[in-house]
């Protein structure tokens, strides 16, 4: 199967517009709760657009279709971003957007497999996704299923030892159906990731662990798409990783310029303002 055959990729809606739609939905959800990991959601929107509208094969009306590429969200608190793309992809109904974080919602604040169609695993206890991805990739190989496993993780999770157990294991078992996406926004709960527990030189680390490694600007859609294609099409006999350098709050300049923290504070009256600012940059 070539990339262009995949159903979601056939749409004539541009990836830039998809990313914009994801940002808009995330901001709308943030407004509902008056809080949310909006900085991360805005930063990762381009990677999610390229994942769900270029790279991944799936059926929106059949989230557990056996042939689907599996997309694991290791970072549970990025759920707001994943809900946005799941709605954009038609896996979650957009009508439920305003239930975000409410009692009995299918979209709780932290992502859980048992609550949400399209949410493959329960993330949130960080450093879990890649290990589960390794097991799923082993399972797909046993079943001779040609699908890929994507695991989206944060740079903060690079501090967890389990991430590196999984990295070693993925290479040892030659899992060429495993693609790890690292969101490097250099922010974690207590400050800059590189100042908490520095993972640099990060590309060298992954390469040394036996992974086909790329590092690109995660807010440059062309670069993201090219890296996604290269990860999928590489003949490397092992797993693949793409490190995406991203900018927190991308697309809303007044938030981008705010003193950046892991949990961006947005005042009640600023959600509407952020949506207005986003509107000005609406792509075709």
């Amino acid at each position: 199967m070539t990339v262009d055959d995949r159903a979601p990729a056939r749409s004539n809606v541009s990836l830039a517009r998809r990313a914009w739609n994801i940002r808009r939905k995330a901001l709308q959800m943030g407004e509902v709760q008056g809080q949310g990991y909006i900085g991360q959601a805005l930063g990762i929107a381009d990677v999610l657009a390229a994942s769900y509208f270029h790279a991944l094969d799936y059926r929106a009306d059949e989230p557990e279709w056996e042939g689907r590429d599996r997309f694991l969200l290791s970072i549970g608190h990025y759920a707001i971003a994943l809900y946005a793309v799941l709605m954009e992809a038609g896996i979650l109904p957009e009508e439920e957007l305003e239930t975000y974080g409410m009692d009995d919602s299918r979209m709780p604040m932290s992502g859980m497999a048992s609550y949400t169609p399209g949410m493959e695993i329960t993330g949130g206890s960080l450093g879990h996704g890649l290990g589960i991805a390794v097991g799923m990739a082993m399972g797909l190989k046993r079943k001779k299923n040609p699908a890929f496993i994507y695991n989206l993780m944060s740079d903060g999770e690079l501090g967890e030892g389990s991430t590196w157990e999984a990295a070693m294991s993925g290479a040892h078992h030659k899992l060429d159906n495993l693609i790890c996406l690292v969101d490097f926004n250099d922010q974690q709960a207590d400050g800059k990731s590189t100042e908490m527990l520095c993972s640099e030189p990060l590309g060298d680390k992954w390469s040394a662990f036996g992974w086909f490694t790329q590092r690109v600007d995660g807010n440059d859609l062309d670069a993201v798409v090219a890296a996604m294609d290269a990860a999928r099409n590489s003949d490397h006999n092992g797993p693949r990783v793409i490190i995406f350098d991203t900018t927190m709050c991308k697309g809303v300049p007044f938030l981008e310029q705010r003193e950046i923290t892991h949990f961006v504070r947005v005042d009640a009256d600023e959600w509407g303002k952020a949506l207005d600012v986003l509107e000005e940059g609406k792509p075709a």
Partner: protein
Amino acid sequence: MTMASMARKYEARKVTPKEERQATSAMIASLAAEGYDTVSAPFGQALVQAAKADERIVGLTADLGKYTDLHILGNEMPDRFYQMGMAEQILMSAAAGMAREGFIPFATTYAVFASRRAYDFIAMAIAEENLPVKICCALPGLTTGYGPSHQATEDLAIFRGLPNMTIIDPCCADDIMGMVPAMIAHNGPVYSRLLRGKVPSVLTRHKPDYKFELGKAQMIREGKDALVISTGFMTMRALDAAEQLAKDNVDVAVLHCPTIKPLDVETIVAEASKGGRLVITAENHTKVGGLGEAVAGALLTNGVAPKFRMIGLPDEFLEAGALPTLHDMYGLSVSKVVEQIKGWL
């Protein structure tokens, strides 16, 4: 009661004469058979048999294939065996991932490493998702003289607090061979303790028609003076103690309770309600949070309050040494079980 070896670091020791020495190392391979027939690697044998009939079954280990008898599967069905290396977190995560893809993974390591090092991965990747991963762990409780690094004296307490988790502490080879198919039939996560190597066959000698049933406690021996509710190899100790006590006209019943969770409350309450017997729990585990406290809770919440005592390990990090010495010291040996019961009657 204690050698207090750990508090005497700077005190020189005398060498024991050769004929009196007891070795530590001989004890980690298997529990001494103590007069029973043994079965070689019952877990490995049962698993191979099950795997031949069910393609979903795979085995994963963290560098302890030989020490959990999983190597039997590895040797006979190498395609079903995954060596994950000395990495318990990926062991459990990968098992969860394989279960997500429709397999029934058996993940093996030592009980200390599963319960302590890999707990978060068992809790969140396996139990919270209710995935059918079967975690089978050697060296339960006090079955090695290596000291606290290898003695899983609190594993049952740790896993009892975990929702969705079924917990088994088998007595002997009969239990182990029976529990493997029962674990597969149960659609959810299971933590089971393992005895490996040459494992005694105990229960069928005392009760020829004994068959392991998940979630069921079974009377192995009747008796009117005391009721021992026991799990794991302490059922073997209780049965041997009961035979000795019978010679002194003390009549001891033994209720074997290999499933710790869910506990067979119905049988336990019914037996403990019968006619004024002293009720004693016996477990190869700290008295904190194990079978004893589970039984006590079940009895009290059901309005049953017999005279009640617990046999189990103290709330301490245990000493290193030879296993028979340690079992005597901590009250798990047959003679100490006899002594304790006599003292309480």
